[in-house]
């Protein structure tokens, strides 16, 4: 299954040098189990740092050149949209949870999913192909060490959780042999809502956690219809002051 791993612009917390984020290295490890030649994708001024992904198991790396500090989202979306339309479209796009450069929002996977119209699933710790074709079985990490197994239809975007298996060890020779393809940014194609919007900070009450993921109790509704479910959730959020009506 053709897999693309998104590589962010991570910095070593000690030296400040560009490096491969560990979570993305773990993502590469998961990708290597599904795809014989997993590919990487990075938007930035160069491949410094992310080229280590080749040493951790990627076979090729696409680098879309963009000036330092530029929002990578339009270029990512355009590139992936083109490859999704190609003869051999990627079935799976893996990414970390957020960049490690310091000013990262963690929103890229979600905005990307929205722009490409792909489903997104967070916090995978294990992946394997589903029984039906074009499906993927994902073990998702939940709070308090719980796991949930989800089957999703491909293509999809999946983010990886730090509890995924450790990355494949780094091999310099593999990095040297990996292919790096450089592209100029082409952002014309896909409209992306980059403006996630800024709102002033507003203190929100803490949610009292009653139980773990398998919580039940008074608020458990089994199999409500979607309209009803949405109404119940909104009502809950408003009752607790988490969302004020009309303010989003």
């Amino acid at each position, binding site marked *: 299954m053709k897999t693309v791993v998104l590589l962010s612009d991570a910095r070593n917390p000690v030296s400040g*040098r560009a490096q491969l984020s560990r979570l993305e290295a773990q993502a590469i490890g998961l990708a290597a189990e599904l795809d014989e030649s997993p590919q990487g994708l990075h938007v930035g001024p160069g491949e410094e740092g992310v080229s280590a992904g080749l040493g951790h198991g990627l076979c090729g790396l696409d680098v879309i050149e963009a000036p330092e500090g530029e929002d990578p989202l339009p270029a990512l979306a355009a590139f992936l949209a083109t490859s999704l339309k190609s003869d051999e479209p990627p079935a799976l796009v893996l990414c970390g949870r957020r960049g490690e450069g310091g000013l990262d929002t963690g929103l890229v996977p979600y905005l990307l999913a929205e722009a490409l119209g792909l489903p997104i699933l967070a916090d995978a710790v294990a992946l394997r192909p589903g029984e039906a074709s074009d499906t993927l079985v994902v073990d998702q990490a939940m709070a308090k060490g719980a796991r949930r197994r989800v089957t999703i239809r491909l293509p999809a975007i999946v983010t990886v959780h730090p509890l995924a298996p450790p990355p494949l060890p*780094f091999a*310099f*020779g593999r990095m040297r042999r990996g292919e790096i393809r450089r592209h100029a940014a082409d952002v014309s194609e896909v409209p992306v809502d980059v403006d996630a919007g800024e709102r002033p900070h507003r203190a929100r009450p803490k949610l009292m956690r009653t139980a773990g993921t398998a919580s039940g109790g008074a608020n458990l509704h089994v199999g409500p219809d979607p309209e009803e479910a949405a109404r119940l959730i909104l009502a809950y959020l408003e009752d607790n002051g988490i969302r004020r009506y009309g303010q989003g």
Partner: protein
Amino acid sequence: MTAAAFLPWLIVAMIIVAAIQIGRRVMLWRQGRPAAVDWIAGLKALPRRYLVDVHHVVDRDRSASRMHVPTAGGLVLASGLLVLGLIPALAASHLYWALVALSFMVMTAGVVLETQRRYPRALPRLSLGRWQRLPVYLGVFAVCGLLTTVLAALGNPLPVLSLLLFFPTAAAGLALAATTATGPMRHALAGATHLVAHPRPQRFDPEAAKGEATGLRPLDLDAEKLGTETPADFAWNRLLAFDACVQCGRCEAACPAFAAGQPLSPKHLIADLAAASGGGHARAYAGQPYPNERATGGAAGAHTAIVSPEGLVHPDTLWSCTTCRACVEECPMMIEHVDAIVDLRRFQTLERGAVPMKAEEPLAHYRGCDEPNGRPLFERTDFAAGLSLPRIVEKGEAEVLLWLGQAAYDLRGQRTLKALIQTLNAAGVDFAVLGGQERDCGDLARRLGDEATFQRLARANVETLSRYRFGRILTADPHALHVIRNEYPAFGGAYKVVHHTAFLAELVESGRLAPASLAGRTITYHDPCYLGRYNGEVEAPRALLDALGLERREMARSGKRSMCCGGGGGAPSADVPGDTRIPDIRMGQVKETGAKTVAVACPQCTAMLEGVTGERPEVKDVAELLWEAIEAGRRKPAGAAAARELEPA
């Protein structure tokens, strides 16, 4: 025609058989990579290399040199003379036969001595099997040859007996010749050729500094394959070296990993590497197995991976080595085990990423922030807050550049460095440090096979150093010393590097320091491998300790034949389990001397020996002892009172 008259033809036949057998081996060597060999210089140097260098090592085990000189000498002499016997005039001379008989007699004497080493029970480090049968062949050849030639010298009074004696001579002689391909006699020609075409000719040069022959060679990072995977990836003269091994087991007896029950025996490894290049047949190894041997598939061949679960050598064997060079120091055949081990590690690390799990972390830190412990470079001088520690950026130049190394991040190492810095200040030395510009020297990365990281760090450090003016680099870390002194020149940085023990000894000798006497304390000195064996510096630290008036006791293994603390070559990172720990063994040897303190001169040794639990002698760096003496001298007029024996902590 007497039976003796056939002897010259027997020798000719033996030479032909041996030539064919050796030819088969030569074909195998030719599968290796090419290597630059100065044949003329090598041939010229051969007699000296054999008679001086080899003999010097062989002679450490007197029983070996006493048996080898007559056996080999007698064999060569008798064979040489017998070939001359093809000249009819000589063959008719009784005196000639008497001479030949004499050579056989010498050989017989040698074989008797050899037999005593092996029967009734061989020394444990020796191999059995074909090696145990070797004296039998040699003995039959020598004794029957002797009798045949004695009879010839007497005018052949008993022709039937001579004929009867000739046959066993011939059989044993041909059997000996036949073992030149895969058996014991292979060592003779392979050993001689190895001396001529040795991959490190500098080690035979008495003028050259020891370190020149011990530094690792840079790897071409643009090569198609990085490091050694199969026998064919070794240079041909390395394959030749493996064939020279006589399985004497001296390396094994000296190997700390073997002693600690880790699955490594340098002798077994060399035998495996020799068997690997032959390929196709199971190894016939009759020495002690690797301790706690890990099972392997045993597949061999010139193009078969050596280190793999299916191959001949288990990865744990490779990662147990501390690169202490004790094996190289002890090897009478001048084999370079450490080079082979590092070459094999380079492939595992660079091409397969197959480093031991725990060793991955320091390598990852190296890539991320140039320090194996993952600490920021600018924190390197934090420990010296309150001490006067000038930075070279501020001064621009200094007489001495102090290389702090990794010890600066370690609480125990910091104590040593503080003592050293205080001593330098007390002596008024003009020194400075690189501070936040000092990156790790890359020793650990290189020994773990990560040549790419090492070369990057070496270049970066050379670039940094080129910005400043200084006379010498001073360091308390023998690993940094070795790397900067002997391995950085390949990257364009040639520096005078001095170890703190030598530097401090200089200061004391020239009277710039006035330490009080610490007399009354017993001490023993543990030589760091990278200072003693790698760089031949064993005297300065002792001179310094003696100058402090300490009562110095030597351990059985000291100087260039010292035993490793277990801390080198990334072995603590690889952490291959054994039966005991190497530092525990070494500390046991310290205790045997009865000394209350063990003086060390390396932060690794300090850490390893400090890690020994239970009641044990105190571990003190030479610099700490000196500083203690200086402080004592300040409190009282120099030499007024003897210091008290300190109780171990």
